[in-house]
């Protein structure tokens, strides 16, 4: 394994400026104190009930996500670069989706192959020619970023559908404030607690024109069995909006209502945490009981805003990802501020050839996969796994992309043997409203707790950290 860049000690082993205070504190603090705080954190999480479900594991209906008490720290200037790169990227994504469901100039210009769009199961013909409020499709984006050296941040993945994880960002900070007041006293850390306010302001800005002065926002959840249900109820609570299921809503005369104890109440903005497929059984999967019959017709009539819009999957597909630098150049006429990880598209024969020849060096991902499921990490895979994957690749190459195995940066992390470096990524959340773009400083840092592991997903044994952006 290549040597990874450590965000605390850098190349030469001396603490980098952003981590200077933390390094000093770590040198002073007694190991049992750290261990005590760690156990305290776990008790707090358990009491608050922050859980997530793991699909296919019946005993893990409600499981705790591991939390690491050492913060991940970004200097103000580092964050400035990331932030401007995020804004640029999300702006381009919104232009792109509007174009795909509109004039399709990017296809005419030959920048993206047509079949990648039209034969993509997440492409929604229902959206063709439809005008969405303020031309915004992706109101909430979660952009996954990894770092490989002091200068280079790569975008690993765009999440333009229903990105999750923001509740951990908020809860992690709350818990850190309780457990480490002395560490906070040594730093000036940009706050994140205003995220729900920013989110609500974003929703209000995108309400349909015929909504009242105080638009009604609801959060639509698939229900208690969804892996992110905790987050849904957490956010609804913080936003002060109703947490609704499909059966709580109905559509009459192309208007959306929720069933309340005081009769039907008009709904203007739906923050939906349900996939397109399940939104409306009349328009999409007829067997879905999670959605609201007629929701799409109300949406098309402009009487309700869905956040995010329908059909945004054509922007965060892993095959489309590889075209993102071209997309940014095409719409904004600028070079991407955040780079893409070099990506081989297995749909192209010469790329596939390369991938098959170098399988043991590459990370191979499913185009529509998420959560770290169905992914191959070449250098860590057994021989027979490689062989099996090779066969899968050959039989259905369009389903895969491949990337070099990146040496993700590491951060000091509390593990069994003490404090040790572990690989991390970062998911900041970008909010796009009619009035402006809002990015709360930082985001969710995920950490691969197993030594040497590069997989940070919570479903695969990853944990989280609080993320500090230093203020000036």
């Amino acid at each position: 394994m290549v040597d990874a860049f450590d965000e605390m000690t850098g190349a030469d082993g001396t603490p980098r400026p952003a981590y200077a205070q933390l390094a000093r504190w770590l040198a002073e603090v007694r190991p049992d104190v750290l261990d005590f705080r760690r156990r305290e954190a776990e008790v707090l999480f358990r009491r608050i009930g922050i859980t997530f479900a793991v699909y296919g594991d019946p005993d893990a209906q409600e499981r705790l996500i591991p939390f690491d008490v050492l913060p991940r720290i970004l200097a103000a200037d580092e964050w400035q670069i990331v932030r401007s790169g995020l804004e640029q990227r999300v702006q381009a994504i919104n232009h792109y989706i509007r174009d795909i469901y509109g004039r399709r100039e990017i296809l005419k210009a030959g920048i993206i192959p047509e079949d990648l769009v039209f034969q993509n199961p997440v492409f929604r013909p229902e959206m063709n020619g439809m005008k969405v409020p303020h031309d915004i499709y992706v109101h909430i984006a979660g952009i996954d970023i990894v770092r490989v050296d002091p200068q280079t941040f790569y975008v690993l993945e765009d999440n333009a559908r229903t990105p999750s994880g923001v509740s951990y960002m908020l809860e992690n900070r709350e818990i850190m404030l309780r457990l480490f007041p002395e560490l906070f006293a040594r730093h000036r850390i940009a706050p994140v607690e205003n995220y729900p306010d920013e989110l609500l302001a974003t929703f209000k800005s995108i309400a349909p024109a015929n909504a009242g002065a105080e638009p009604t926002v609801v959060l639509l959840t698939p229900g208690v069995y969804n892996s992110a249900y905790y987050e849904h109820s957490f956010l609804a609570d913080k936003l002060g909006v109703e947490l609704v299921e499909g059966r709580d809503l109905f559509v009459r005369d192309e208007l959306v209502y929720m069933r309340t104890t005081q009769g039907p109440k008009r709904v203007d903005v739906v923050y939906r945490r349900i996939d397109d497929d399940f939104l409306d059984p009349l328009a999409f999967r007829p067997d879905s009981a999670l959605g609201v019959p007629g929701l799409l017709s109300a949406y098309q009539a402009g009487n309700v805003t869905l956040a995010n819009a329908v059909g945004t999957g054509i922007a965060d597909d892993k095959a489309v990802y590889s075209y993102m630098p071209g997309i940014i150049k095409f719409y904004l006429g600028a070079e991407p501020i955040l780079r893409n990880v070099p990506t081989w598209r297995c749909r192209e024969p010469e790329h596939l050839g390369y991938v098959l020849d170098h399988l043991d060096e590459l990370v191979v991902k499913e185009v529509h996969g998420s959560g770290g499921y169905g992914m191959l990490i070449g250098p860590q895979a057994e021989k027979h796994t490689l062989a099996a994957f090779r066969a899968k690749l050959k039989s259905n190459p369009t389903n895969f992309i491949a990337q070099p195995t990146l040496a993700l940066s590491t951060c000091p992390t509390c593990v069994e043997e003490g404090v040790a470096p572990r690989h991390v990524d970062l998911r900041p959340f970008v909010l796009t409203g009619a009035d402006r773009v809002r990015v709360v400083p930082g985001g969710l840092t995920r950490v691969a707790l197993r030594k040497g592991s590069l997989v940070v997903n919570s479903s695969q044994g990853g944990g989280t950290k609080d993320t500090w952006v230093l203020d000036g």
Partner: protein
Amino acid sequence: MLSRTADNLYWLARYVERAEYLARILEVSQRLTTLPLAYAGSSNEWDSALATAGCVHAFSEIYSQASEETVTDFLCFSAANPSSIRNCFEMARSNARAVRTALTVEMWDAINGTWIELKRFGNGATSRDEFMRFLRWVQENSLRFDGSAYRTMLRNDAYWFSRLGVYMERADNTARILDVKYHLLLPAHERIGGPLDYFQWAAILRSVSALTAYHWVYRESVKPWLIADLLILRDELPRSLASCYENLVLYLDHIARAYGRQGPAQRHARAIRARLENSRMEGIFQNGLHEFISEFITDNNRLGAAISEQYLT
């Protein structure tokens, strides 16, 4: 407030109340079966437990014989019985989880703690001792949940819907006992009455935790028509039909005032309450106790439907 949230709160309270009621019925049956046959009468107490739990039909689909073993299993632990104590707590907890943020921490702790502890009892009790402890445990947990709701909830619609659940369930339960045991309470019974009936009467009072209350209210030995009076008409007894309806009218009025609108549920509840207030036991016996109870059960179900229609769907 979302109708579904109100519905969850209402059913959460109903299921907890039902679990407690089942535990009390079983405790009483258990006690009667320990008496010599001459005292307890020859009727099968377990049949009657099933009837008061409203489970005769569901039971007969699984078992052929009502015995201590089959009935306690069915009413306490059976997964096949939707109203077993275990399922009541399961349902209560899943209703609670769906409205987690509408509950106070204390309520959540109470119901979630009960649900976690329930696993300790596994698939049944290994001995009579343990079984009796289980029944006590059920009642204590119901009290704890009810107490946390009473002490910690804001007095707004969420609280009122939760109370409606308690009193709807309670009225139904008391009426069901009367429906099954009414023949023991007819005045004609006095003449036949012997020690046998005393234990049956005491059992009825125990199943609504009113044996001591009876003596406080009447200061007399146990008389069947007074039992009927206590369970039907006396406001002072928390589980009497009259008391349940006093509360149902009260909480429905709170809701109507907050929402600025009266509806069928309020009118219906007031009508039933007026009937209870204007009734005297002599009249009820004259027109038939059984008819009175049957009519009440129908009316009570109709109120449940009206509440559901007006607020919960």
